[in-house]
């Protein structure tokens, strides 16, 4: 058959070269897409923080009523390690200072007790939630507004200090899972 010539080594090289370009371009796309996905995942998981064996999940706080100088912050602390640790202090950029409190309701009477620390036993978690422990955010520099975030730190006796970000949920929120609630100050 005439008209068909054998593929020269140079042609093959050229062909492979252009193929590798295309391949390279696709690889680059995949790489960029993966990076993008990881960044998005990281942003989505931004409510988990880790320091050593201590994992902190879903730091959140309640929006404050008008003019309130005090707010409540809540977290879930997990000690994934084999030795006990202790949360000894906390701070928040939005508060003059932060205290650790235990709240109890007994016989209709609410009591609040300041704690100088909370033990986090190994392989256990301690939950700060309404009706139990809370981080009392005192001398608020500005109100806690629903939907906003603020940063803070948690200091553990062994693990050290970790930076966390708190999400502000509605005034009546009972857990970090409540993202939208009725607003009773409207619609009267």
């Amino acid at each position, binding site marked *: 058959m005439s008209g068909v010539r054998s593929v020269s080594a140079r042609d093959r090289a050229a062909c492979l070269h252009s193929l590798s370009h295309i391949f390279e371009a696709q690889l680059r796309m995949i790489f960029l897409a993966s990076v993008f996905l990881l960044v998005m995942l990281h942003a989505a998981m931004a409510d988990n923080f880790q320091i050593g064996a201590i994992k902190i999940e879903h730091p959140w706080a309640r929006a404050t*009523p008008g*003019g*309130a100088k005090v707010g409540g912050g809540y977290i879930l602390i997990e000690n994934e390690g084999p030795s006990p640790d202790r949360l000894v202090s906390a701070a928040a950029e939005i508060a003059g200072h932060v205290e650790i409190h235990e709240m109890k309701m007994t016989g209709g009477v609410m009591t609040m007790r300041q704690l100088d620390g909370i033990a986090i036993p190994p392989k256990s978690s301690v939950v700060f939630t309404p009706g139990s422990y809370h981080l009392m955010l005192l001398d608020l520099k500005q109100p806690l507004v629903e939907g906003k975030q603020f940063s803070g730190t948690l200091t553990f006796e062994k693990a050290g200090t970790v930076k966390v970000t708190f999400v502000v949920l509605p005034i009546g929120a009972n857990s970090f899972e409540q993202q939208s609630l*009725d607003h009773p*100050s409207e*619609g009267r």
Partner: protein
Amino acid sequence: MHLSVKDTAPAIIFAALFFVGVKFILVDPHRNPLKAVSTQRARIESLFQLTTQSGARLSPQELADKPFAIFFGFTHCPEICPTTLWEMSREMRQLGQLSEEFKVLFVSLDPARDTPEILNTYLKSFDSRIIGLTGNKEEVEAAARAFHIYWEKVPTTGDDYVLNHTAIVFLMNKDGVLKDVLSYQEDAGVQIAKLKKLLASASHV
């Protein structure tokens, strides 16, 4: 004229019985319904010594002879007080027109920090019909005692303090008779049912 024993004995017996009666009936509230009523009336009266968030004394017109829900707290309370006020607001909204039939009162146990202005700003985050009450130390303590509220100042850091306090909502009829209570974190449906019952019993008076 000489008074003989026969003449004076009935008088003495009568006087003795009178004083015994006074001691047991008027001094022991459990035996005297009149005393119980005066305790309840004292509760209502204690409220009129307090100042609302507008800066004026609470007037009888504001209670309008209606049943009321009353809660004692303080604005430096991080959790229970905002939650209770939030829940009451939500329930007032759910009750619609029925919520016009009762009043909601929030009395501060911390008059040193909770001035009428502070209460006014604070209560803007909740239903506008909630009446905030404060006063001077004596007025607030008199109201707290009239409602048998427990409270205790607990120092924290520096000059700061929190209050341990009775944190349930008392449902009272217009005469100050306790009809029911709402507990913290109680189911909303249960609370609404209790409020409806309070209103139903009021309309039968």
